[in-house]
C-alpha cells in the first residue's frame, strides 16, 4: 500500500513563523487571564457606590508586552541559545559566552566614569536638569555601579570562588568602615559620613545579618537534621521577650541575658521537641507551625507580663562590655570617654559588629558540630532514620539536640533584635517571618552556609533596596510604593531559583571527613528528610 507523505511535514516552520504563532497564543492566553485581573477594577465613587472602572489601555499594554516577549524569545532567544552550544566548524571552539561578551573592559571603564561623574554632580542634578530627569539619572548611576561590580565579580570569579569564605568575612568586617569612609568623602565631613552611614549599616547590614543568623540557626534543624520546622520564629520571640522583660524589669546586662535568652529558647525547643518528634513530615510541620502561633497568641494575651499587642518599649541598650554606654546622657558615654563627637552611628556600628560576631559564632558552631558525631548523626537522620536506629543512634535525643541547638541560635538572635529595636511586640513574630527564614534556607541550598548567606543577602537586601528605588515614582506616579511589591518579587525569585537550581544556590554538600581528597557530594544523592 502506498503511503503518501504530505509535503508540509517536511518543511519545518522558520523560527519567525513559529514565533508569530506562539505570540498569538500567548496573547490570547494573557488576554483571557488578565481581562478580569487588569482590565476591570471595582472602586468606590464619591457617594460610596461600587463602580466598575475599566482599564483597557493597561490591559492592552500588558497583553502586547506578553506577545512581544514571547515573539522575541521564540524568534531570537531560542535560536541564540541553541547556537551557543554549537562549536565553530573552523576553530572547533564554542562561541564566546554571553557573559564574556556582556562584560567588556571599555564598557566597565565607561560605567565607572559615568558613576563617578554622577556621584560628583549628584547634589546639583535636580537643579540642572529638573527633578524628573534627575530621578532617571540616579537610576542610571545605580545601574552603572551594579554593572561595574558585576564586571569585577565576573573577571575574578575563579579567585572569588576559591576564597569565598575569606573574602566574604573580610568584606563583612570592612563594610562599616568602607561605608563611613565613602560617605565622609562624598559629604567632605566625618560627622556627615557617620550620619549618612546609618541607613546602610542599620537597614542593610544589621537587617541582613539578623536573617543570616536566623537562617543559619534554622539550617541546623531543617538543612542538617531534615526536620521541617515552620514555627522557628517562636524561638526568636522567646529570645526577644526574654531580653526585653528581664532587661527592663531587672536591669540585667545584655551580656548576661544573651546566654540566658539562648538557654530559654533551647529549653522551649526541647519542650516543643518532646511531643512532636514522633511525628514526621507534614504532621511535624503543622505542629511546629501551631507552636509558633501559640507563642504569639500567648504574647498577645498575657497582658500582665507582656503588655499585650502594645509590646514592650524602653528596652535597655547594649553596653560596650560594661565599659562604655551608648546613651549620650550617661557619664561613660562612648563620645565622652573617647572624646569624639556625639553620634547615634556608634551604636549602630557596634551592633553591626555584634550581630556579625553572633552570626559567625553560629557558622563556626555549625561547622564544628558537623564534624562531631552529633552533627553526623543529624545528617544521617535526614538520610535514613531507620538505618540510624539500626546503628544504635538514639534518634529522639538526636532530634532534640538539633531542635535545641537551632532554637538557641534563634534565641540569641531574638535577644539581639530586641536590644537593637529597643521595642518588641508580637507583630514582629508572625508566621510570615518563619516562612521568610525557611525560604532563605531552601533558596540557599539546605545545609550550605555560604548559599544561605547569599540567599539572605539577595532576599533581604533586595527587599530593602526596593525602598531606594525612588525614581520609580517618576515612572508610575507619586503614590507608587515599590516596597509593597516585595512579596511578589520574593515569590518570583523563588520560582526562578527553584526552576534554575532546584536544590538552591549551593546544591552540593561538603563531606565532613575524607580519606584521600575532599570532594563535594552532588545534591542528587542527598535527601531532604521526612520529618
Amino acid at each position, binding site marked *: 500500500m502506498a503511503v503518501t507523505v504530505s509535503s508540509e511535514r517536511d518543511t519545518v516552520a522558520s523560527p519567525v513563523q513559529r514565533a508569530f504563532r506562539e505570540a498569538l497564543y500567548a496573547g490570547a492566553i494573557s488576554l483571557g487571564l488578565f481581562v478580569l485581573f487588569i482590565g476591570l477594577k471595582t472602586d468606590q465613587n464619591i457617594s460610596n457606590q461600587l463602580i466598575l472602572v475599566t482599564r483597557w489601555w493597561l490591559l492592552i499594554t500588558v497583553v502586547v508586552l506578553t506577545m512581544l516577549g514571547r515573539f522575541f524569545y521564540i524568534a531570537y532567544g531560542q535560536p541564540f541559545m541553541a547556537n551557543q552550544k554549537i562549536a565553530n566548524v573552523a576553530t572547533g571552539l564554542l562561541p564566546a559566552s554571553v557573559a564574556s561578551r556582556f562584560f567588556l573592559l571599555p564598557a566597565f571603564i565607561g560605567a565607572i566614569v559615568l558613576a563617578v561623574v554622577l556621584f560628583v554632580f549628584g547634589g546639583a542634578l535636580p537643579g540642572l536638569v529638573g527633578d524628573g530627569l534627575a530621578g532617571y539619572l540616579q537610576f542610571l548611576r545605580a545601574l552603572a555601579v551594579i554593572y561595574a561590580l558585576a564586571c569585577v565579580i565576573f573577571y575574578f570569579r575563579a579567585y572569588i570562588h576559591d576564597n569565598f569564605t575569606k573574602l566574604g568575612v573580610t568584606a563583612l568586617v570592612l563594610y562599616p568602615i568602607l561605608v563611613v569612609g565613602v560617605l565622609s568623602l562624598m559629604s567632605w565631613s566625618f560627622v556627615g559620613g557617620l550620619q549618612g552611614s546609618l541607613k546602610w549599616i542599620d537597614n542593610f547590614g544589621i537587617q541582613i545579618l539578623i536573617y543570616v543568623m536566623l537562617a543559619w540557626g534554622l539550617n541546623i534543624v531543617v538543612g542538617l537534621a531534615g526536620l521541617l520546622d515552620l514555627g522557628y520564629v517562636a524561638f526568636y520571640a522567646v529570645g526577644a521577650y526574654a531580653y526585653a522583660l528581664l532587661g527592663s524589669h531587672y536591669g540585667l546586662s545584655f551580656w548576661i541575658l544573651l546566654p540566658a535568652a539562648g538557654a530559654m529558647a533551647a529549653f522551649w525547643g526541647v519542650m516543643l521537641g518532646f511531643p512532636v518528634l514522633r511525628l514526621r513530615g507534614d504532621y511535624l510541620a503543622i505542629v511546629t507551625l501551631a507552636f509558633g502561633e501559640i507563642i504569639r497568641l500567648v504574647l498577645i494575651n498575657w497582658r500582665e507580663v507582656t503588655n499585650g499587642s502594645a509590646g514592650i518599649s524602653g528596652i535597655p541598650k547594649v553596653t560596650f562590655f560594661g565599659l562604655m554606654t551608648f546613651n549620650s546622657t550617661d557619664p561613660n558615654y562612648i563620645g565622652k570617654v573617647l572624646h569624639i563627637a556625639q553620634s547615634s552611628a556608634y551604636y549602630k556600628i557596634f551592633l553591626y559588629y555584634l550581630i556579625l560576631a553572633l552570626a559567625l559564632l553560629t557558622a563556626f558552631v555549625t561547622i564544628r558540630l558537623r564534624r562531631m*558525631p552529633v552533627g553526623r548523626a543529624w545528617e544521617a537522620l535526614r538520610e535514613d532514620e531507620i538505618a540510624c536506629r539500626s546503628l544504635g543512634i538514639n534518634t529522639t535525643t538526636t532530634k532534640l539536640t538539633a531542635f535545641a541547638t537551632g532554637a538557641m541560635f534563634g534565641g540569641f538572635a531574638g535577644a539581639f533584635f530586641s536590644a537593637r529595636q529597643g521595642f518588641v511586640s508580637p507583630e514582629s513574630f508572625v508566621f510570615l517571618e518563619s516562612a521568610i527564614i525557611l525560604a532563605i534556607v531552601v533558596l540557599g541550598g539546605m545545609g550550605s552556609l555560604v548559599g544561605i548567606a547569599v540567599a539572605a543577602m539577595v532576599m533581604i537586601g533586595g527587599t530593602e533596596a526596593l525602598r531606594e528605588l525612588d525614581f520609580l515614582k517618576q515612572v508610575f506616579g507619586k503614590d507608587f510604593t515599590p516596597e509593597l511589591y516585595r512579596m511578589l518579587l520574593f515569590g518570583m525569585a523563588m520560582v526562578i531559583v527553584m526552576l534554575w537550581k532546584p536544590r538552591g544556590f549551593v546544591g552540593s554538600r561538603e563531606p*565532613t571527613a*575524607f*580519606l*584521600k581528597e575532599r570532594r563535594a557530594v552532588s545534591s542528587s544523592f542527598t535527601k531532604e528528610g521526612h520529618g
Partner: protein
Amino acid sequence: MNASSIQKANPGMKDAILQVEHLSMKFGGLVAIGDLSFQAKRGEITALIGPNGAGKTTVFNCITGFYKPSEGMITLNGADGSSFLLERLPNHEIPARAKVARTFQNIRLFSGMTLLENLLVAQHNKLMKASGYTILGLFGIGGYRRASAESVELAKHWLEKADLVDRADDPAGDLPYGAQRRLEIARAMCTGPELLCLDEPAAGLNPKESAALNSLLMDIKSSTSILLIEHDMSVVMQISDHVVVLEYGRKISDGSPQAVRTDPRVIAAYLGVDDEEVETVLTEVGDEDVIEQLDIGPDTAHGPGTSSSYLAGPVSDTIGHSEGERVTVSKGASKAAQVDARASVAPRKPAERATAKPKPAAAKSPTPKPRGGRK
C-alpha cells in the same frame, strides 16, 4: 543497666549467642511468625531460609527491636557473660548495648554521605562518649581527636575488607549495587557487633560479587557470629554451619546444610515458590533420590496436566491420586504440610512410587505455570 533486661547466663547454653524461644508475631489476623524457637551458636553462620513471605525479615525485625514480638523471648548472650532480653530493650539500645547489628533487605545507606562518613556514623556511640557528649569535643578538650583518628582507622580497615577503599570519598548513593551491599555490611561491622544479622546480602549480586561476599562473610565469621537470611542457595550451602527453614512463620526444618537440603519438607516448601527456585534446589542438591522422590508427578493420563511443579499449583487444589484417595489441603496450608500428608499416605502406595518417573529439570514445561497463591 536495666536490671530486667539481664538474666543470669544459663551455663548450659554458653555457646548459644542467640536463643529465640516461642517467638510469635501477629499483624492483626496474620500470624507472620508462629511459635518459632531456634538458636544461633557463637562463631557460626546460621542461615534462616524459607520462601518469600515466610517471615524471615519479620524475625530479624523482632530480634533487632523494630517490631515488638507478640509473644516469646529472644535472649542474647554476650561474650562477657552478660545476657539481654532483646524484646525488652528499646530499638536503638540493641545495637548499642546488646551488640547486634543488621543490614536491610532493601539497602538503607546514607546515600548523600560519603562511604567514610557512613562508617563514621556507625561509630556514633563510641565517638559520642569520646567527645564528652559533644561539649568537650566542641572546645577541643579530651580525647576526641584521638578517638576520631581511631574511628577513621577502623573505617579504613572495613573499607579495605569490603574492597571499597578506593571509593572512600564518593557518595554512597553513587556505588553499584553489589558495592552498596558490601558497604552496608562494613557499616554494620563498624558498630563492633557480636551478632551480625544479614538480610539477603547476596540478592541482586552477580556470581563474582557473590563469591567476594562469601569470602567477606567467612572473614567476618572469625570474629563475629552471623545470622543470615538468603535465597541464594550457593551462598547458604557453602558458608553456613546451621540452617533454619521457615515456612508460613513456622520452623519446618533445622540442622546442618546437608540435613536440611535433603529434607523433603524443605524442598516441598521451595517447590511452592518459584520454578526457578525449584530448579535451584534440585540442581544444588543434585541428589537423584530426592529428585526422584519429589518428582512424583501425576500420571499424565489422570492428572491435571504435565506440570513438573505439580505441587506448585494453586494451594487450594485438591491432590488427587489414582487410587481415588484424596488429600484435601485447605487454602494457605504449607507445602511442607502437604509433604507430611503425603508421607503418611505414601507407604500405602508403593506402586505409585515405583511408577514415578524422574524428570530432568530441563524437561519442565516452558509455559508459565500458575504459582501458589503466595505472590
